[in-house]
């Protein structure tokens, strides 16, 4: 009997597939559907500060009766925040009541400030862990890269201080030395790091000459970026690692585990193929393990990580040069 269970960020998972924060994890109905199809844990859709601000603006635009009523609206963003947080708390409570898998709350933040008390409320509501989805867009010219990196650690430390549940951090790959950040982050006492988050990128419509949204889904080729950094860092970090971005099939899942990931997060492939795709990926994993005579994941996890291969530099420049020298024009 093959055992697919893993430990991720101090949580027991029946298999290594976690539903990443997305529209699929924003309602109880969807969460139940995911669990039914084999998901091992869910990260509830992030509460975005920006979303609340947008909701505030949309509400104003839709209801001009209140536009001139400045005193009524002056602090209305706090009311919206409360409403959103209360809805989120309800989702955590409902999910905990109906699901038998870990429920991970998620906050998308660019600052620590007022999110810390909300994080405490999510813990009180029963969340098994909290994922901090941090992405500070480096748009402030007055800030150095070190300032920005320090902001990440400020957010982590201030939330870590207040919570007793495991905290994981989802980061972007856009650091000068991302490996150093991964390792430094892992030493802050957090329980896991997710590599990497996907940020919204604006695009242009050259016919309409307007701004629009670029493709929001990852592509199956995107997995190589997290693969590289997980392989390079999995034996050097003091916490769990989860791979995210571009994991669309069982093969990518297996590769991440071989690189040393404890689990993977998926979202785009659920949007593209439906929840039943989770089961398909699990079957692929099980079939592959069977063919290799692996009885559990620890038997092969990290087998192709930087520490376990003869020449770890292959994950870096050497492999890149070899690839192009073999492809003649």
């Amino acid at each position, binding site marked *: 009997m093959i055992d697919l269970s893993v430990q991720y960020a101090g949580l027991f998972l029946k298999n290594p597939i976690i539903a990443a924060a997305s529209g699929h994890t924003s309602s109880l109905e969807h969460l139940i559907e995911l669990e039914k199809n084999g998901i091992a844990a869910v990260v509830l859709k992030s509460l975005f500060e920006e979303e609340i*601000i947008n909701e*505030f*603006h949309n*509400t*104003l*635009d839709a*209801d001009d*009766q*209140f*536009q001139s*009523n*400045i*005193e*009524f*609206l*002056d*602090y*209305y963003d*706090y*009311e919206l*925040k*409360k409403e959103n*947080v209360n809805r989120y708390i309800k989702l955590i409570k409902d999910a905990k009541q109906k699901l038998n898998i870990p429920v991970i709350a998620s906050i998308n933040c660019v*600052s*620590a*400030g*007022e999110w810390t*008390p909300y994080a405490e409320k999510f813990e009180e509501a029963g969340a098994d862990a909290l994922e901090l989805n941090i992405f500070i867009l480096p748009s402030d010219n007055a800030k150095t890269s070190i300032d920005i990196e320090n*902001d990440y650690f*400020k957010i982590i430390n201030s939330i870590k201080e207040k919570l007793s549940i495991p905290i994981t951090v989802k980061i972007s790959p856009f650091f000068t030395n991302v490996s150093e950040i991964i390792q430094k982050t892992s030493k802050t006492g957090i329980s896991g790091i997710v590599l990497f988050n996907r940020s919204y990128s604006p695009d242009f419509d050259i016919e309409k000459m307007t701004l629009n949204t670029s493709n929001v889904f990852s592509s199956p080729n995107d997995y190589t970026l997290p693969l590289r950094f997980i392989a390079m860092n999995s034996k050097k970090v003091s916490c769990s690692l989860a791979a995210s971005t571009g994991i669309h099939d069982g093969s990518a899942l297996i590769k991440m585990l071989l690189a040393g990931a404890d689990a993977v997060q998926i979202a785009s492939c659920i949007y593209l193929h439906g929840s039943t795709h989770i089961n398909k990926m699990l079957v692929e994993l099980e079939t592959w393990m069977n063919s290799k005579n692996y009885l559990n994941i620890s038997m092969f996890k990290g087998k192709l990580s930087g520490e376990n291969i003869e020449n770890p530099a292959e994950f870096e420049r050497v492999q890149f040069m070899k690839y192009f020298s073999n492809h003649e024009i």
Partner: protein
Amino acid sequence: MAENQTEYYKIERAQEWRAEIRKNIKVKDRTEMIRVKMLEQDPLIRNKNGLEVNLGLTEELAVTEAQRCIDCPDPTCITGCPVNIYIPKFIKKIEIRDFLGAAQVLKETNSLPAVCGRVCPQEKQCENSCFYTIKLNKPPVAIGFLERFAADYERNSGKINIPETAQKNNIKVAGIGSGPASLAWATDMARMGYDVTVFEALHEIGGVLKYGIPEFRLPNSIVDIEINNLKKMGVKFVTNFVVGKTASLDDLREQGFQAFFVASGAGLPRFMDIPGENSINIFSSNEYLTRINLMGAAKDDYDTPVPFGKNVAVIGGGNTAMDSVRTAKRLGAERAMIVYRRTRNEMPARVEEVEHAIEEQIEFMNLNNPVSYIADQKGRVTKMVLQKMVLGEPDSSGRRSPVPLEGSEYEVDVDIVVVAVGVSPNPLIPASVKGLETTKWGTIKVNEQFQSSIEDIFAGGDIVRGGATVILAMGDGRKAAENMDIYIKTTLKHKSND
């Protein structure tokens, strides 16, 4: 402006007495006159007493100011008034020293002129539409000062004019709440001959005029006189009666009430939901002001006093925040602070209230926002943690949004905090009346006739607008009365045809 109304103004303006006084002073001379200043108590004396700040105009000052009005052929000021006071006419009555006549003109459309003359934001309404503002870029005619003068003159003369009422039709109608919307509605319904009863949850009549606005801005005695006028018109008031709890609307229907005007206000306080906000001595502005204004909490011989506090912080930048902080100063606060996350330019409070507060040595901590409170072992607030802010991009209301400055937090000693960050509509009626449609804001949905989704229920004021000025609420009350009359007559006609 309706065509017949324009015609009416034209005819009135052409009257001999108006034409005569226009000739007395040339327009050029009128426009060169300087706007009079309101007489006020000295700031450093008034911030230690509870007496009214503004002392009103003398007869001479009022006449002088009235002379500035050029009696425009197209009186744009009226369009800025939610109850369409015939402004040039009452001002010209003052110019000819017919002060009682001026008060009578006011009362044709405004049942609470002494109140409106004190608390209306004229600078955003009638005075903002004045010819001086629009065309001359000069200070507008002080319409608010003159309104207050005429109303006060009438009251002090002892010759208060009680509006005439039509023959009683014995049709019972009920107002819920006794604030400005309801009082304006009740006046018009009584004028039309209806049997009007106003139900009030508190022990005093007047709603926000009494519990929300401090006496140094609007003395309760002024409100009481206006209420007495309504009583003289036959309006009945029932206090300590919570519609939805003491009796339901169905109970009242059984008692023969044919239609209802819900004006239950916005009495639900909002908080920011930040750590430590539940500490002792952190009040909502509603509680703080109601206890002091209405329940004697600042008096030694009352059972439920509020602590006075040396360091009092009021969070917010609206009129309620100004009322709260100025009240705290009068109760002896050494440091009475406004903590506001934008700048003075973005403050929703009336310009006059902000200026008065500054004169009274209120400390303005703009571009600051509380992020938490620290309490002592007994749970009493001792410090607020403020975060500095900067202004970012404008939001949908056109005002620049406050953006927190990370890492700028610092502590300030406080022993009382008043949270004045807005209020939400009173949920009692919406929650207790089945089928009554509400908006996402919690306000009652009404059509242009101020009629709700239940045909015999009309609504206006803060329960419809979320938060409104006194005069806007009164405007709602008047329009609701006009349409309720049409509704009742139509319904009765149908019933008699059946």
